[in-house]
């Protein structure tokens, strides 16, 4: 195995193995110094986070480890960003912008944390608005962040009706076509999403990533 390949392997391992104690930031800097193409380094990071996602799905690692891995990847990406920006070719990251919130009255944040972490892993720009968000405030934040998508999460059946308020406020403010509204969480059903006229539903964070990627491709005309 060449030195470069070994370095890239270690970067991946640093992300997916919480016990490895590898300094991913340091290795990322070393990889740049070794003149490894920046997109190859991004691939190593992506491979690491993808393996970590699979391990989370199979319950070999847990939410805190997923968060740590995502934070490591984000920090490494900050190191790589200036080099990526120098490239004339297209950025590999998907330029999706999304705001995610738990509806008013709902303070169950773990599902939303998982979702936001998986979105970051997928390369989306995510604004995690937090718990107990009023419909009007969610929309204001989506405008301020220039988001494409609004993600609404609810574990409580009694918070679910506030999702309908988001849709009706968007209509009242002539903003319905500007945002795609997606829903998930324990209390949400596909029937409810259809009933209130939201745009999408997913049961898991992994599904949500696929759904948004597909919708974004449709919106931008990518086949």
């Amino acid at each position, binding site marked *: 195995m060449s030195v470069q390949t070994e370095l890239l392997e270690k970067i991946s391992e640093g992300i997916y193995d919480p016990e490895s104690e590898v300094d991913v930031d340091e290795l990322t800097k070393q990889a740049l110094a070794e003149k490894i193409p920046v997109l190859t380094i991004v691939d190593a990071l992506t491979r690491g986070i993808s393996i970590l996602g699979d391990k*989370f*799905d199979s*319950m070999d690692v*847990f*939410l*805190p480890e997923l968060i740590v891995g995502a934070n490591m990847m984000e920090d490494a990406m900050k190191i790589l960003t200036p080099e990526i920006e120098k490239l004339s070719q297209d950025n590999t990251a998907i330029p999706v912008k999304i705001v995610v919130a738990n509806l*008013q*009255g*709902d*303070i*169950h944040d*773990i599902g939303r944390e998982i979702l936001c972490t998986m979105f970051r892993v997928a390369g989306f720009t995510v604004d995690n608005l937090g718990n107990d968000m009023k419909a009007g405030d969610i929309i204001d934040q989506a405008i301020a962040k220039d988001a494409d998508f609004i993600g609404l999460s609810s574990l*409580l*059946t*009694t*918070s*679910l*009706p*506030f999702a*309908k308020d988001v849709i009706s406020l968007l209509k009242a403010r002539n903003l319905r076509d500007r945002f795609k509204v997606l829903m998930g969480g*324990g*209390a949400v*059903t596909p029937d409810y999403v259809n009933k209130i006229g939201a745009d999408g539903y997913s049961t*898991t964070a992994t599904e949500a990533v696929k759904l948004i990627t597909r919708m974004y491709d449709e919106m931008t005309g990518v086949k």
Partner: protein
Amino acid sequence: MASIFEVLSRAENGPYIKEDEYNMKLFKTNKQLIKKYGIRYSKETPIVFDKEMADGLFQAALELCEIMGMMCVDTSRIINFTREELLAAIYQTSKELLLGAGKDSRVMRGRRFGDGNKMTVCGGCPGTPLPEELFLPIMLSYAKEPLIDIIIPGSLVTIEGMDVKTGGPLEIRACRQEMIWMREALERAGRPGMHIYAAGESSATELGTLAICNDRMMRATDSHMIPVLSELKTDYARLSRVMTGLEYPSFTTSLIDPIIGGFAGGPEGAAIVGAAGILLSTAAYNVQMHCMHAIHNKYISVSTKEGMWMDSIIGRAFAQNAPVPILADAWVTTGSGTDEVLYEAAALAISQELSMLNTDSLGSTNGIYPNCSGLENRLFAEVVDAAFHQGMTPEKGNEIIEKIYAKYCHCFDNPNLGLPFNKVYDVKLVTPKEEWLDRYKRVKADLAGMGINFRY
């Protein structure tokens, strides 16, 4: 034991911590405690019979409470308790409660191995959104089941067609209507004094609880629920319920939802957090009962091997060290009208009965669809009765659960949601339709063939 004023004072003056830091500290501490006390999950033993490991879990939970305390998210402060305070609270709490009134009253126990008592069976559909027009017959279908000892309401999600919103005025109306219909259901079933567990299920805030604090609705012989936020956290809304509970004579119960795969870690970590939740909520909330609800990160259901194991080791840990009334939730993946919901009910009945737990009933389709009825609860109670009277051992229980599990595990990835109540029951007579009854009889015969000796 710390008074509510002392708890509130600690919530305002305790050590400051950011929520993210608290979450990560919990995870790291839990990992160390799992190693230190040798807690090991095994999918082969959903019913835990390792006495030493269960004792270790109790000690690990105590240590976790001492290190972490309970976080108040509104103030970002930690409500700390000493080991002495935690032990005093858990040892001083009632071991037996007389729930309900008159001929319909039942004893709820902190169970011990070999105490000669079977569990107290709670029937109903906790956390399940019920349509207004079906609320009364659905609850009546549970009240009519003789083996059900106490009852828990489902949630009303609309009132006169309007959505009930968290913190909105309809929470008050919904909770009051819920109790009016619960009382009617119990009277029509001839069990007017039956204990209503977790009254005010239709409200996520303290508004609903306050609205039913009168003898026409939630009586002194009923109970209401005070959740612990996941993991080991509280807030002013929960503490307001504590204050309500102290100044109104009904019973109170905690609700603890350790997430398997979340900040607690895997099944082992979730078990430590669940046990710690019992200790902390006894000290901070002064509750008399505990509802333990394992949440599987991927499948939600308690009927997963991880969910049953988590509940089981907690049940054993407290039965051996500090018996307190614990009701385990029994959320299942599937719904009424299916074979699978009956098999899930049977597996949970065996694991909970043999782990010295009581039950907080089935939440069909993990509480998402109103696809629930009294019949699956009947089977649950019959399996409990059989397991108790035949003296089923944990080893035999695990052997039978393995066979039952094979009948429903395919549904975790592809849930068979079943049918709504009005498709499986005659709504006027409140009796199961023939097809649903035939299915129940067939599954019951299959279970008997696996070694469950039904008495009738």
